[in-house]
């Protein structure tokens, strides 16, 4: 009996041009969709809107219509549909034919940008990202001036802000109303707080740390916690100054060339560091290193192989601690009832979900409570919460309601973006639970050892 194995051709690496350069290359990926609709069971956007264009099956039908000429990329409704997706990859976990839906989404966004260019605001922001020095200066100016638009939101031991009245009024539709609670933009970013090389006596391993923008500008303390933990486990840490944004947002908005440039810069920075591993504390940055760079640079004879090399040497902090350095179990007590939210990029892209839980469960004093749907998206989706506030807020509300039922006082997660969203929504619909990167609890446990003595 003849057996055609279209699988190998469907998922085989593209030589030369990629999906992101030629939309026609995505056709085989589209063809594998059976329209079974299993994606409906897990899609957060569809869960709120219950409109077929919201879910992967519908978006694939639209992509098919674009390829056949039935729909035009110039149709503003096509544009809106394309960006009404968090690219959370939940559908991909539930897809019987394992369609790479993220590629379809990003390829068609890239086609849109190729055809019509970038929206001016995106062009401006992405242009800044490509110039790390300018971006860094801009973020610091922003931090210094943030008091004009934001007031302090007083919570014990936490630096939070809320939009001031006039700004809240005009930005309410973006979710930046007066109830919004956000982390403070730091005046001294993480990378200005640490040396380029953090040495330890008798180091066992040398590794680079790639903090990404969120840790660098919003959560420098998380970065410091990671450094502390790595030092505790005799890891010499390199934080190359020339690294820049991972490019996930640029890429997600279809600006392929900027994403490629950022990828090459980051690879250069790491190549020069002379390390064996890269550690990340953010699933989105990790996903870029593990998957997107090698896809983006597949046709690049110089950087393609390097991207491939680093894709195997990128480690999320918990996996690095458990599998590579066999970390020392902490002894300091952290009395807390804790739940863990699976960041989409961490679980669905990097397949990291057991390790953070293991880290948490090994902290003395921690009572771990699982929520009913820990890997349901939080609704942040990078810029999604700004562009689709109503839907994102409904998704966030469901998440917090699930978290409320655990009774946990601390919500942890492995993604700074999720931290930001969960923080806001725990104040809106929750019990103002504390929200922390899970790794900070490990750092706290190590610190408490010293106090316990």
């Amino acid at each position, binding site marked *: 009996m003849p057996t055609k194995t279209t699988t190998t051709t469907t998922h085989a690496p593209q030589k030369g041009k990629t999906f992101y350069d030629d939309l026609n290359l995505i056709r085989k990926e589209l063809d594998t969709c059976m329209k079974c609709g299993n994606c*409906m069971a897990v899609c957060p956007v569809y869960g709120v809107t219950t409109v077929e264009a919201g879910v992967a099956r519908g978006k694939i039908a639209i992509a098919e219509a674009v390829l056949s000429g039935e729909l035009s990329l110039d149709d503003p409704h096509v544009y809106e549909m394309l960006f009404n997706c968090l690219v959370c990859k939940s559908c991909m976990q539930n897809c019987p034919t394992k369609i790479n839906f993220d590629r379809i989404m990003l390829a068609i966004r890239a086609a849109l940008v190729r055809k019509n260019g970038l929206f001016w605001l995106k062009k401006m922001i992405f242009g800044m990202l490509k110039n790390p020095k300018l971006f860094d200066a801009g973020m610091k100016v922003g931090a210094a001036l943030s008091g004009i638009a934001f007031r302090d939101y007083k919570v014990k031991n936490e630096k939070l802000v809320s939009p001031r009245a006039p700004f809240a009024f005009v930005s309410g539709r973006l979710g930046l109303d007066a109830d919004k609670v956000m982390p403070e933009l730091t005046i001294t970013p993480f990378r200005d707080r640490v040396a380029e090389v953090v040495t330890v006596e008798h180091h066992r391993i040398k590794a680079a740390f790639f903090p990404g923008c969120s840790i660098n500008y919003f959560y420098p303390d998380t970065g410091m916690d990671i450094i502390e933990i790595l030092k505790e486990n005799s890891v010499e840490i390199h934080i190359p100054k020339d690294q820049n944004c991972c490019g996930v947002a640029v890429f997600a908005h279809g600006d392929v060339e900027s994403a490629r440039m950022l990828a090459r810069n980051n690879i250069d920075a790491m190549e020069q560091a002379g390390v064996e591993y890269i550690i990340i504390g953010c699933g989105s940055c990790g996903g870029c290193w593990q998957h997107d760079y090698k896809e983006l640079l597949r046709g690049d004879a110089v950087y393609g192989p390097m991207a491939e090399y680093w894709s195997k040497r990128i480690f999320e902090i918990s996996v690095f601690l458990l599998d590579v350095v066999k970390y020392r179990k902490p002894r300091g007590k952290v009395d807390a009832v804790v739940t863990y939210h699976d960041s989409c990029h961490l679980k669905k892209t990097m397949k990291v979900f057991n390790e953070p839980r293991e880290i948490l469960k090994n902290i003395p004093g921690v009572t771990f409570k699982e929520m009913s749907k820990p890997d349901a998206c939080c609704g942040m989706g990078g810029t999604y919460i700004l562009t689709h506030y109503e839907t994102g807020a409904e998704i966030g509300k469901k998440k917090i309601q699930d978290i409320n039922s655990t009774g946990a006082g601390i919500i942890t997660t492995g993604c700074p973006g999720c931290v930001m969203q969960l923080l806001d929504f725990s104040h809106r619909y929750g019990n103002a639970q504390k929200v922390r990167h899970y790794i900070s609890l490990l750092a706290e446990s190590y610190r408490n050892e010293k106090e316990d003595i």
Partner: protein
Amino acid sequence: MLDKAVVEKLKEIVGKKNVLTQKVDVITYSYDATADMPRQVPDIVVMPSTTEEVRKIVNLACIHNIALYPRGAGTNLSGGCIPLKQGVVVSFQHMNKILEVDPENLAAVVQPGVVIQDLNNAVAQYGLIYPPDPGTVTTATMGGSVAENSGGLRGLKYGVTKHYVMGMEVVLANGNKVRFGGKTVKNVTAYDFSNLFVGSEGTLGFITEITAKLIPAPKYRRTMMATYKTVEDAGNTVAGIIAAQVIPATLEIMDNMTIKTVEDYAKVGLPTDAAALLLIEVDGMAELVVLQEAEAVQKVVKNNRGDLNVATSDAERDKLWSARRAALPALAQLGNCVIIEDATVPRSKITNMLMACANIGEKYNVTIGTFGHAGDGNLHPTILADKNNKDEMDRVHKAVDEIFATALSFGGTLSGEHGIGIAKMKYLGDEIGQNGLDLMKSIKEALDPNYIINPGKMVPSKGA
């Protein structure tokens, strides 16, 4: 295209935000989960929230003679939701409330857009279940599955959707609302309307409320897998289990093609030289009874030279089930066109049907993997093809014709659980004859004389 005034009127009825008119939106209502079907883009999609809104939509459609296409989640496998003549898709996704769970009467009242799994989640706290479990249980709606009379993996012991509908509210094609049945176990008042509308595939009226029957969840279960060197041995095991007076909740079969493909795809440790595989699960409320049933099954398996694997923990059960769950995804990797049929034969003809499917695959040189519900004779010959290869698709169509003819020759039926829709309409006369077709036409025209509701499904359109 629809008259502008009609569109405005529809917006008035359901509210502007519940009407989809943009091309990008309506294109996504042009299909369901059925492969190899014509695609027709509807003019407009409306999403009513109340029965009253449904009535108004139907009244408007009557006045302007507009085709209405009811739709739940669009997961059916017979083309039941495809809008053949453009017209208006009526999506029930926004009528998704569980109105009442009544454990005392073992009943639940739901709106049609409730997802089956959501109902099960809601009744679990009372130790109850709603047994029909089509493969789409996490996405399909109650309204859709009632209209299609969906089956599932537990049909042999627990029956199918029609056994769990106690009452309904239906909006007829003349705009009238009728309610019948209810929470009583016994009810012989009037005609048995439930059985008229269950499985009517949305051609006779709009189901706007369902009173569903619930049962206590079985407390104990035992799961086993058996592999066989010959299809006959597997078929004899199925007969032997029933002869031993055991009715398993699940009695699934897979042919060699499916076993090989699953193993290649999921690496679950199946013997790829096995001719057939059975997945058997017995369940019940008393542990001793379940264990006795499991022992009886094991004896039958051994007598028929089956290689037995019994799960002793939930993890092991999950492993055995993973093979069955992988059947469709694994087969689907073999082609971009996945045609899943549900030709069904009397249980005693399972062996003959499995072998016939394999022979048909060879005869027409098409890839067919067959798996399905051996206990109730409901097989899923699944054909994998390249939709862009015309010659291959022609051979596929011939193979499908022959599969149905074979099932009928064994005293079987065209459809065990997927329905007729548009996919199997041309074969309908082969099973029920001209008089049967005439009867269907009479019923359709008595309830929907102008062919407003889901025209072209099950019964040919007027004049067609």
